């Protein structure tokens, strides 16, 4: 029994049943497949999180975002500037208590270098309804190249708890033709 010492004292010399051995081999191979699948996707897949990150002071990140906002704001909505930066450019999205600032307007099928950072606590960038979720830290500037491929209006929900106003922290990204 499993509750008593093994009945064969030299238990490590007992042979392993064929069915157990078969399952161990299958499970091991499946593990290898899953492992190499992640590596394969870095080459063949189109959805990989960037490894490009810089340390940054919150005020510096805010300045850079403000420079972009000053240059490319096209209109205002509910007090938020709507910014339409040129394709291929560096785009900044500020996470702070409790808003995503500013609203971005991007062109479909164009690439942008999206910078994400927080000015205070941790936040969660949750782009809906595509359901892309990335953690946002203060002091870290995560740069990811994104290429929106469906036009429409997207919500940015905060999905890392960030205090009492957490559930009111919603931003917006437009993708236009």
């Amino acid at each position, binding site marked *: 029994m499993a509750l008593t010492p093994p009945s064969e004292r030299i238990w490590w010399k007992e042979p392993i049943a064929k069915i157990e051995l078969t399952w161990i081999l299958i499970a091991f191979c499946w593990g290898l497949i899953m492992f190499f699948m992640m590596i394969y996707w870095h080459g063949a897949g189109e959805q990989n999180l960037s490894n490009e990150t810089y340390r940054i002071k919150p005020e510096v990140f805010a300045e850079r975002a403000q420079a972009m906002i000053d240059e490319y704001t096209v209109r205002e909505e509910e007090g938020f500037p709507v910014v339409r930066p040129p394709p291929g450019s560096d785009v900044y999205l500020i996470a702070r208590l409790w808003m995503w600032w500013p609203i971005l307007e991007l062109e479909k099928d164009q690439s942008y270098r999206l910078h994400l950072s927080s000015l205070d606590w941790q936040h969660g960038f949750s782009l809906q309804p595509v359901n892309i979720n990335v953690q946002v830290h203060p002091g870290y500037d995560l740069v990811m190249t994104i290429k929106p491929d469906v036009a429409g209006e997207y919500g940015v929900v905060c999905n890392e708890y960030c*205090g009492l106003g957490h559930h009111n922290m919603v931003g917006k990204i437009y993708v236009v033709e």
Partner: protein
Amino acid sequence: MATATEFRTCPNTGLKVDLAAERLIKANAVVAIVFLAIGGLFGILVAFTRWPAVHLLPADWFYLALTAHGLDVLLVWIIFFEIAVLYFASAVLLNSRLAAPKFAWAGFVLMVVGALITNVAVLQGDSSVMFTSYVPMRAAPNFYLGLILFAVGALIGCFVFFGTLVVAKAEKTYEGSIPLVTFGAMTAAIIAVFTIVSGAIILIPTWLWSYGLIPDIDPVIYKLIWWGMGHSSQQINVSAHVAIWYAIAALVFGAKPLSEKVSRMAFLMYILFLQIASAHHMLVEPGLSSEWKIFNTSYAMYLAVLGSMVHGMTVPGSIEAAQRKNGYDRGLFEWLRKAPWGNPAFSGMFLSLLMFGFLGGISGVVMGVEQINLIMHNTLYVPGHFHATVVAGTTLAFMAITYVLVPLIFRRELILKGWARLQPYVFGIGVAGNSLFMMGAGTLGVSRRHWDISFADASLPFDYPAAAFLMMGLNGISAILAMLGGLMFVIVVVGSVFFGRKLGADEKVSLGEVAGSGRAVASYGSSDTIKIPGTAVLVAIFFIAFVLYYFVNWKYLSEIWPMS
């Protein structure tokens, strides 16, 4: 010292039971169940608030209740119960005295005091930082202090366990190697030491930081080390509840492991590889490379997953072999159909096994794929996954073994046997619903730890799909079932402990309801006599489900915006 130890003899097994160990097992198990009840109550408040049609608590109370829920059930209930399991698996199973019972009591007191301090800090309202307390969000200093005291207490418990192994070996209280269940408990204790050290490394500086003595703590490093504790502690749970699966299979069926070597190797895989699972929480963080993420999230090429998949066959396999030996040999599944489904120890254990594998295991591996995590991180999919592992898996297994511990250790007959018979099903179905509907909502994008998914007061409007609201409603209904199941458990167990008929000193306890259980099966099990076709079919179904679900999620991933 040894002469001063008092023993009684267990009428079932003939083992000597150290009375000091028995008292400690009782104390730890009782406190565990008290915190299960408290934490469960907070859980139901959380589920009712997230049910959009009910939306029970105001926002500040919701975040407070959610913090307390995680703390009391994920940490306090489980660790107290695990300490009880450690003492049982060492002193009782090894026929030995418990090493240093005074230290064990000191550890117990520290854990109680720590749990109370942190709970009070949370209830005071200025520590609603969630169980994870990610910096730079700051809790009251006592929040961290309580956790540190609790961890020190648990560490003492682990060392009492190791000490008991040494004592038993030195005093030759058993022959040959330690039992498999004790080996599993040892796995849990070794991982616990790693876990607690990680916790100390991060929580002590964070405590000082909360007083302003340390200027700041890097949020990514915090998370990395915190999850060295947070995720590893889930691996303690896995080791402990797998050990309990084996224990119940042995108690109810007299089942013998198919192969001691294979089962022990599978536990060893846990020790060697589980700790690096901190990475599961870091897959979409800035500042860590993909190479690091891939190696660590896969437990070095899925070797710890391999361990669990092995147990997934050997546990039901050992039951099948025992049942066939007991005469239930017809067809593929007579052994399972004729299993004692009315015995809560068995039904709880088997439901735990099924749900841990099919719901918790598969979802965990899929969510832990570096890229697939992008479509799941911090959505409700995450709590959906871990309610399957920690509640349906660990908690249900702990409940199942409790039905055995009440007569064996508390020496009381169960009251309300009809309730006990139903309880694992009510709780299990409820939790399975919680898990599935939260995963469903998460797939639709719904955020975890979120008070209002209708965004009524948000600065900009946003709507989740209507199906998400349906999922949250179904989750609420499942939570009612789970609550009833939890309540039944607490009433049956607490009622039995205080009011159940006292068993006589020589009275044997009937554990299995299967004819011939507990006898004889210990002599078969060599490789050429094993016939477990039914288990092979179950494992094949599991494997097909796993592969299909895995690739379906890659398909989902391929549909989101291209990004690099």
